[in-house]
């Protein structure tokens, strides 16, 4: 079988490329909304934990945050995905893509929280104290003094986290989400021809992750200039 034939058979015939497009769309939807959810959860958890470390308040929330981070980071994401789908939403009629968004978002939130916390903690304690000593509150000190400095450490790590997340959405296939990897698998198992489906999908992942890296690099440089 020639290479053209193989390509025609796996990609063009019977509109098989539509699987790849559908998979790509689902991958992008899940990754995009999971990133947003992850940032929201991560920022909240990081703030709670940092505020607690600074003031001793919010004991219960801090403990919940700690448990959340440890559980998420201590178990495989596939398992979290399956638990959310097969256990939590067992008898609920819910879009499987939405389950993916929730699972990956909740997963990402724990990593984002730790990234932000580490970024904040990398700033010299004297900065917080200087802010306080001028009469600034915790939130004003955070906003005007700590975060603008911490963002330079946070951003590259966040970028890496999102690249990881994008790739990890491939395990969505475990609960039957037709995302990019699953799409290539579907075509391959129909045609018994793995070459193009796998290579094309690999290239698509590569283009997306390289694009993200570029974007993060660009933002870093822009932030770097502001100082």
């Amino acid at each position, binding site marked *: 079988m020639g290479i053209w034939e193989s390509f025609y058979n796996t990609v063009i015939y019977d509109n098989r490329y539509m699987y790849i497009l559908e998979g790509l769309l689902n991958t992008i939807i899940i990754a995009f909304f999971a990133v947003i959810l992850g940032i929201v959860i991560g920022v909240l958890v990081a703030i709670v934990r940092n505020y607690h470390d600074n003031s001793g308040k919010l004991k219960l929330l801090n403990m919940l945050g700690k448990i959340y981070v440890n559980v998420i980071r201590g178990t495989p994401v596939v398992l979290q995905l399956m638990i959310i789908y097969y256990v939590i939403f067992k008898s609920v009629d819910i879009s499987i893509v939405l389950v993916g968004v929730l699972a990956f978002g909740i997963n990402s939130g724990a990593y984002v929280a730790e990234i932000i916390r580490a970024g904040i903690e990398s700033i010299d304690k*004297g900065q917080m*104290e200087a802010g*306080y*000593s*001028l*009469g*600034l509150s915790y939130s004003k000190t955070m906003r*005007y003094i700590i975060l603008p*400095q911490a963002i330079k450490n946070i951003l590259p790590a966040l970028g890496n986290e999102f690249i990881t997340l994008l790739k990890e959405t491939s395990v969505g296939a475990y609960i039957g989400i037709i995302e990019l990897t699953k799409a290539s698998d579907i075509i391959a198992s129909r045609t018994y021809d793995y070459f193009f489906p796998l290579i094309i999908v690999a290239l698509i992942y590569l283009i997306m992750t390289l694009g993200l890296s570029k974007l993060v690099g660009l933002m870093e440089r822009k932030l770097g200039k*502001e100082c």
Partner: protein
Amino acid sequence: MLEAKNISKSFGKNLVLKNISLTVEEGERLVIIGPSGCGKSTLLRCLNYIEKPNKGKVLFEGRDLSDSRVDINKIRMKMGMVFQQFNLFPHLTVLENMILAPTKLKIMRDEEAKKKAISLLESIDLKDKKDFYPSQLSGGQKQRVAIVRAMLMDPKMMLFDEPTSALDPEMIGEVTSLMQKLGDDGMTMVVVSHEMNFVKNFATRVIFMENGTIIEEGSADQIFNHPKNDRLKEFLSKVA
């Protein structure tokens, strides 16, 4: 103006301040001396509640800092603090460093804050550095900026924690003379310092601390020329 009543502070099992009381009157320049690790910084930091004492009270103009109805941020606006490591904000220029707190706290408008900041910078000959970042300044310049940053808030009192300890010897003078000038203008100050020559002329009162307690207290003349306690005598012979 400021009163600390029986304050104790421990870090874990390490009891760092043991039942310390002191008062600071308006216009006083109180200097705290003592060997390393005796709790001088901790005491100073308890005075504006950057460190919270485990026991005892701190009263500023009669208001109890531990009282939940007292807004600690408002109190701190009136108590400037200067740190050993300057703690300028590295992402902001000199001018931005100065006007951040007054403008964000809405004490001054942007224009007013800038005008006052520039005139303060002018008084310490650093007006031409107003758009520089802290990393572009010498140690002495950084510390003087930190001092005028605190002054822009128009505090009633200022706390200094070893303001010259991180400086090269040739830069100590520019910082101590600024502090002297502040004192001459009537600023109430509490200063932790190892710079004995400066302390002798500067302090209106000196406290000698050891091991978390105040061992001796008196005028600069009493402490330096007629020390009573043996530990103080030993300390002075070491630092002299």
